[in-house]
């Protein structure tokens, strides 16, 4: 392990890697700061740019966008009262009132410091836990992989709110789409309609851009004052500093929120939004002055920001060790791996350990660059939020088309991108969420392949999935996860009903 860490340290200080880290953080801050865009969308759009990069550089670049995006969301939340990302909503509740009182810079520095600490703790969690989980999962055979991918699909339950059936329909559509192309076991073709280019299957990046970027563009079409410039930005006073005493007074809160963010991030499907809401509520619950929340409390900024950056690296744990993406951005990273001809999972740690450690160590450094860029470039990022929606929409269309085209150098992928934009639009009208479609698409091939391999291994005996201890444990975990989600959803529905009755 020590040799891999030494190799990683050598790799991350490569000049190009350092440039890419900074570029990723900068782009992430910009994507996060512009309301309507997000770090997630940034990753999806920029995956094609990683085609000529080394794998470790590509993943560090993409994760840097994610880290920067989580902090960037707080810039617009604090300075223009519009959260750049949904995970910055809680930051806005405290940050904007504080900024209006003349403490915009202090609010931003609180968000940045908490984001930095959350990000560092998350990176260390990845560095410690991912190799351990990966070495355990080396014992997995096809039945275990099937159980694991099936567990991955159960994440759909946590992604589709109170309509499990519509989420499942989305998931099934995604799995069906993943089967397009050549069957990896028998070599027969599936749903190719005689199109030779479809033999390799549908391209993940084309689907992701279609499903997530086009609804974003269609939202911008809806904006009535699209040609006008953005909202007024609150100016920052350079003398308004966050003192060390103020930061130290929140040390335990930041630490707790960061750990909470790591735990939530490691659970596929949960994400930064949930982490920041839970941490904000926890900060309010344990505060000596909970009545002051909503008026500009520093604790109310630090907790959600530590948590949403705590999610960033930890969310890579299930992706790197098991190949299970917990979010669209993680799915996009699978696209980056497949561009290099690699598939995710525990064997990656065995065969590409140096690269894996480079990625994990690089993420620590990414957070340092985020702290530096956040300190000096927040004002610039705030000004970029004034880019008119019309210009953004036009550029998004072209970047998406170019990105989809570039993956395989095929015009068919651009058509797939537009087709899936239409699919996202139609599904949206029926409130069928798009995220389960992506999850189904990413995991579908894994489910199909491992189910059939597992059954072939055991002469068609389905009991193999219950009698093997690891598969049984995974399936029990899945049932507990589904039960927990069911209870949470029932609670949520009851609360909505009760608040409706009161109204």
């Amino acid at each position, binding site marked *: 392990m020590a040799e891999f860490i030494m190799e990683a340290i050598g790799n991350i200080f490569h000049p190009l890697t350092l440039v890419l880290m900074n570029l990723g953080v900068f782009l992430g801050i910009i994507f996060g700061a512009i309301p309507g865009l997000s770090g997630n969308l940034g990753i999806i759009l920029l995956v094609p740019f990683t085609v000529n990069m080394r794998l470790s550089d590509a993943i560090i670049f993409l994760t840097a966008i994610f880290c920067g995006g989580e902090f960037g969301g707080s810039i617009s939340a604090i300075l223009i009262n519009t959260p750049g990302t949904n995970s910055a909503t809680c930051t806005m509740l405290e940050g904007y009132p504080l900024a209006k009182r003349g403490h915009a810079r202090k609010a931003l520095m609180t968000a940045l410091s908490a984001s930095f600490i959350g990000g560092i703790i998350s990176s260390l969690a990845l560095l410690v836990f991912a190799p351990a989980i990966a070495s355990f999962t080396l014992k997995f055979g096809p039945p275990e992989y099937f159980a694991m991918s099936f567990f991955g699909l159960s994440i759909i339950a946590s992604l589709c709110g109170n309509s499990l059936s519509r989420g499942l329909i989305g998931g099934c559509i995604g799995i069906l789409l993943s089967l397009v192309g050549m069957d990896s076991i028998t070599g027969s073709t599936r749903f190719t309609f005689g199109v030779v280019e479809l033999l390799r299957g549908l391209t993940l990046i084309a689907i992701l851009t279609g499903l997530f970027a086009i609804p974003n563009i269609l939202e911008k079409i809806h904006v009535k004052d699209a040609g006008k410039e953005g909202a007024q930005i609150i100016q920052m006073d350079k003398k308004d500093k966050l003192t060390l005493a103020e930061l130290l007074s929140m040390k335990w809160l930041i630490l707790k929120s960061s750990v909470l963010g790591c735990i939530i991030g490691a659970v596929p499907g949960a994400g930064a939004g949930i982490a920041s809401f839970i941490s904000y509520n926890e900060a309010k619950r344990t505060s000596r002055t909970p009545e002051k929340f909503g008026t500009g409390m520093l604790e109310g900024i630090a907790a959600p920001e530590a948590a949403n950056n705590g999610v960033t690296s930890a969310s890579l744990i299930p992706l790197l060790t098991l190949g299970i993406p917990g979010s669209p951005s993680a799915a996009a990273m699978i696209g980056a791996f497949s561009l290099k001809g690699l598939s995710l999972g525990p064997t990656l740690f065995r065969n590409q350990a140096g690269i894996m450690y480079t990625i994990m160590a690089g993420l620590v450094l990414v957070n340092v660059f985020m702290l530096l860029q956040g300190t000096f470039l927040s004002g610039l990022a705030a000004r970029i939020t004034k880019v008119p929606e019309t210009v953004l929409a036009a550029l998004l269309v072209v970047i998406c088309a170019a990105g989809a085209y570039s993956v395989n150098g095929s015009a068919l992928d651009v058509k797939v991108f537009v087709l899936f934009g239409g699919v996202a639009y139609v599904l949206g009208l029926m409130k069928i969420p798009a995220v389960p479609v992506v999850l189904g698409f990413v995991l579908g091939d894994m*489910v199909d392949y491992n189910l059939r391999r597992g059954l072939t291994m055991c002469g068609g005996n389905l009991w193999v999935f219950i009698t093997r201890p690891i598969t049984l444990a995974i399936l029990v975990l899945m049932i507990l996860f589904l039960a927990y989600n069911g209870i949470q959803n029932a609670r949520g529905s009851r609360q909505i009903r009760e608040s409706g009755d009161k109204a």
Partner: protein
Amino acid sequence: MKKRTADQKGSRGPALYRIPTHLTAGCFSIVLAVAAACLIPGQIKVSGQTGITSRTIPFFLSGIIFLLGCWLVFASLVLKKEDYKEVEISQETRRGIFMGALAVYVFVMDWIGFLISSLLMGAFVLWYMEDKKPVHYGIVSACVVVIYGVFRFLLGVSFVSVWGV
């Protein structure tokens, strides 16, 4: 689709439609499942395969989609559980036209090349969003050329091209 006019809401405004999403998603799923099941025999050849074949999972998924669709229709029509989505017809028409324009863009790309079609599309998006500032047209056009240049020369992507661009 139920129509709800602005007058019914007691305020002036555009006409709203309420889409019964359970019923619509249910019908959509049933049609999709049947279509997939009909396509499978023609699209997936399984000569010589026995037991679990290449068709097994697709058939299984079609069945699940069908059952989920039936459940949604049952919930809507029999249990009277419905979840409506309100849409503004004028906005949806605008979105529909925009999707049509995107479709034209990708097909025209094969004829006039990536760069020219993207320049035209960029200008169309600005015009469609009623942006009248010439400087925005200039910025978008310049950015399209830069994007093309980055992909073409830095990333080595060979775009569909006409007259060398």
